[in-house]
């Protein structure tokens, strides 16, 4: 329990987590999972001790030292276990142990001297960590979970709550993710230049985008549950941007997240029902986030040829700039979606959003004409059918719209979306 006036150390710990793990993993690049466990233990120790005893003068050095000591402890017990299993007479330390900091001479006391904090600069370590956590051998849910733990500094229990699964399930998933990276030969390596680094960075941005969406689509949940995933995703994109301030797509993704997150207070009604973009009370959008997002995407578009995140941010900015739904510059949105389709050919979600924008400019029939291909490309999804329902309703085809609303409501696996679609159908039946 925190005593009165004790510092809230959690934000500091979350900020330091990737830097401490980066420092440790840099020294032991082949043993990422042991490093990660050791850092988690050090963070827990700090969360217990610092509120009562005060924050050390150099908190990062303290954490690196404690984590390093835990790592050596883990190697010692592992080596003893192996020796027992193999029946070996000699208790030989594994090779990694011989190079472990402080081994043999007794590890430095916590907060004492530390060869990590004053050693190599760590500015790239957080990025290298992100790239390792988003390793292509992992499934997307595992990439997100591992990123939240290793870079975000969240506990397994917090991540489990965010994904609405038991802690034991999430613990297994994270352990498996670390083992998979090791088996695939993934090593902690500071980001070098070139195509491989570029691909790794794109993977990181994609994982942060998915993390944001997981949180943004949440409409209920306990503290630090799903909705906090958006806060965490924004924090982590800011972390990437500090390291890569000139990357237009990093700026674009941050802008896209800010402009989307700004709508959060208006996107659900008092009863928890989803409010469509056109019907949202725009006075409730968060102005500071909109201003920052618009400034970011404006600068990024001026500086570099636009990438997909910048274009999506530009579309979000057009929505943000309209005082109400009717004043939206849909022609500009159609033009931006055309650019996006050229950049991401065959992406059915982009094609679907383009069809919606075309309907807003040229009428529902024009949108409907574009939908058949999208439905073929997304055969299991309710989304194109939900769009068809809205467009048929606008076109005055009540029977067709009702069929499509019912079909979309049956297909969605989202409770609030199902309620929304059923409510639209009920309202239409009442007038039709």
């Amino acid at each position: 329990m925190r005593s009165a006036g004790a510092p809230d150390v959690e934000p500091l710990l979350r900020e330091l987590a990737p830097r401490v793990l980066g420092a440790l993993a840099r020294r032991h690049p082949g043993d990422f999972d042991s490093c990660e466990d050791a850092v988690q233990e050090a963070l827990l120790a700090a969360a217990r001790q610092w509120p009562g005893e005060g924050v050390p003068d150099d908190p990062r050095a303290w954490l690196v030292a404690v984590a390093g000591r835990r790592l050596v402890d883990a190697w010692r017990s592992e080596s003893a276990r192996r020796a027992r299993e193999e029946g070996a007479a000699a208790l030989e330390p594994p090779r990694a142990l011989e190079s472990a900091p402080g081994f043999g001479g007794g590890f430095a006391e916590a907060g004492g001297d530390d060869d990590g904090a004053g050693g190599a600069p760590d500015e790239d370590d957080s990025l290298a960590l992100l790239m390792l956590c988003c390793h292509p051998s992992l499934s997307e849910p595992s990439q997100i979970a591992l990123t939240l733990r290793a870079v975000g500094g969240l506990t397994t229990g917090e991540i489990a709550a965010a994904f609405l699964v038991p802690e034991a399930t999430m613990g297994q998933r994270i352990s498996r993710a670390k083992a998979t990276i090791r088996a695939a030969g993934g090593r902690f390596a500071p980001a070098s230049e070139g195509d491989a680094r570029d691909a790794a960075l794109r993977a990181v941005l994609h994982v942060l985008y998915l993390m944001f969406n997981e949180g943004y689509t949440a409409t209920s949940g306990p503290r630090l549950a799903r909705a906090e995933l958006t806060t965490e995703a924004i924090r982590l994109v800011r972390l990437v941007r500090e390291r890569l301030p000139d990357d237009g797509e990093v700026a674009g993704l941050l802008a896209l997240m800010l402009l989307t997150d700004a709508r959060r207070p208006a996107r659900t009604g008092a009863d928890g029902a989803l409010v469509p973009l056109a019907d949202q009370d725009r006075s409730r959008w968060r102005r500071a986030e909109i201003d920052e997002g618009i400034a970011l995407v404006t600068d990024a578009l001026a500086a570099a040829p636009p990438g997909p995140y910048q274009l999506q941010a530009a579309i979000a900015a057009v929505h943000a700039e309209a005082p109400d739904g009717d004043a939206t510059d849909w022609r500009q949105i159609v033009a931006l979606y055309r650019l996006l389709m050229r950049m991401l050919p065959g992406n059915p979600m982009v094609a679907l959003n383009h069809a919606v924008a075309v309907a807003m400019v040229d009428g529902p029939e024009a949108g409907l004409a574009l939908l058949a291909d999208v439905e073929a490309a997304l055969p299991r999804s309710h989304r194109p059918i939900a769009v068809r329902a809205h467009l048929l309703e606008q076109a005055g085809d009540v029977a067709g719209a009702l069929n499509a609303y019912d079909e979309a409501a049956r297909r969605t696996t989202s409770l609030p979306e199902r309620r929304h679609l059923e409510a639209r159908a009920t309202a239409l039946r009442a007038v039709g």
Partner: protein
Amino acid sequence: MKYLILIYDNPHSRELFSGPEGAELMAEMDVLLKEITESGELVMTEALADPAQTRTIRVVDGAPAVTDGPYAEAKEHLGGFILVDCATPERAWDIARRFPSSRFTPLEVRPIMSPGGAEM
């Protein structure tokens, strides 16, 4: 994405699990459950008691009514379930296919509704 795998039994399939092949079937099930535990996909799994212990609860004219049964007139009854959280529906179908009772009785895989959603 979470899926509920419903495992159906019939009197014959119960016999198979307790007969000479039973140990092999149980071992096969243990391998599958171990795999999905270690991968972090298993949320929970339980077996249900015999359908003879079922009680049906209804409210009739404002008063609760509890009746025994229904007894297993039906050829198949729900015998247990596995709740999994996995990356794709195909993976959930694959887990169901590999559950050993699938050779004798059907399993159903049903997506769980998510509390989140996107405004349209």
